[in-house]
């Protein structure tokens, strides 16, 4: 089953079906209900019924669908995910030391921070 991380969030491929008035995505042989209205309008879900979809999943063991879009995603960007209030721990991704070092140099060269202060920054110290 295709699974990838988009912006640190797990996304999976599944299939959307409609059971009475509820919408259900089957992912990894599990059926998860899609919260209508919170992340996507009912009319948009109707257009995807019976089709393969990509879902964004959040919440660890108690996984919840926080985004849904058609598979394969259209357009230049992977897709956009509209999610309700985002808890900080779910957002956290560590940035690579090389990116940080480069930005520290930029900040020094643009005199946003001093050379002395830059030496205090411990890029990569958290391992």
């Amino acid at each position, binding site marked *: 089953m295709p699974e990838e991380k988009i912006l640190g969030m797990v996304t999976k491929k599944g299939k959307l079906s409609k059971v009475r008035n509820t919408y259900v995505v089957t992912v990894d042989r599990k059926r998860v209900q899609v919260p209508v209205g919170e992340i996507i309008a009912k009319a948009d879900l109707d257009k995807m019924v019976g089709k393969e979809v990509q879902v964004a999943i959040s919440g660890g063991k108690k996984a919840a669908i926080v985004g849904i879009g058609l598979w394969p995603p259209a357009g230049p*960007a992977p897709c956009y995910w509209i*999610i309700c*209030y985002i*808890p900080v721990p779910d957002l956290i991704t560590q940035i690579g030391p090389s990116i940080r070092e480069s930005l520290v140099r930029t900040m020094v060269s643009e005199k946003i921070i001093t050379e002395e202060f830059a030496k205090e920054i411990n890029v990569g110290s*958290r391992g």
Partner: protein
Amino acid sequence: MAAEASGVKRLVVEVTEGCNHACLHCYNYWRNGRRSRRGRPALSRKEIRNLIQKVKRDAPLTQVALSGGEPLLRKDLPEIVCDIRDDGLSSVVITNGALLTDSNLDRYPVGSIFEVTLFSYKAELHNHIAGRPVFNRVLESLVRIEKHKSRFVLACVINKLNTHHVQRTIELGIALGADAVLVNRMNLSRHVLPLAAGLVPSASALREALHAADEAAAKYGIMIAVSVPIPPCVVDPREFPHLHFGWCPRGSSEAYYTIGCTGLLRPCNHSSVVLGDLRKENFQKIVSGNKTREFWAPVPRECRACTHPLKDSCRGGCPAASDECYGTRERMDPIVEFARQPVPAA
């Protein structure tokens, strides 16, 4: 609603109303001398723990955000964070960052998460918006957090003055060790309304700031959330594929009910509406009661004919802002009035 409310996973606890900053756009309803305590003393550390445990008995709580005011003004904040951890919950301290010293940081558990505000990469502008000369202290705090092996999320609140500083501010945050970024537009409340014309960014300025954030998210792979709702009639979130947009959870399991520093429960940290007294009533009873249900119910009249694909997510933007500014949730988010300009059809 009761079943939904019992699914609440997050809680905000305002541990103090005091603050050492005077941010131009501050929305806290007790600002400018409006009294909120009604003669009640602030909760003690033990009371805070008891109330969090009380909520946990009624809901699958996983995370507590400690806010204020400035929460670091409470000397026992590190112990409150430890209590939360000992109760099996995660915490985030929402702070302006100016009071984090080596000695008080040492009292926090390693791996603590802080959400720290930075308005600009330029000292003068950050200090102007914060109302205090604190820029250097904030940067020093961010370095300390990393040395402590804890983590921080950068929170940049956008107003008219700093929209053009967003990308560089995010880059400064990443350089200093930010693991994620919140780019939130300012949210209006009654006492900020007189300043709104000078502070609320136009839709085009907001769009420009969001494009800068979107570019940073794509370039550096950092997660950037825009968690204060932006109605699509102001700026369409679909223009920004790398940003995560939040909407008002309106009482769903994603809601973040807020315990004020005296134990009164409110719908969120932006609202001054008191739903109940958590010291006397149980959480489930309050959040499934009529007052709570009525708070989330109305969709503004002006929004009922909306045809935008995101209308069911938006539902008028931030109902608490409408309530605070206009005294009714039947009107749409006041940000629309100040920021909106014609946008191309979806």
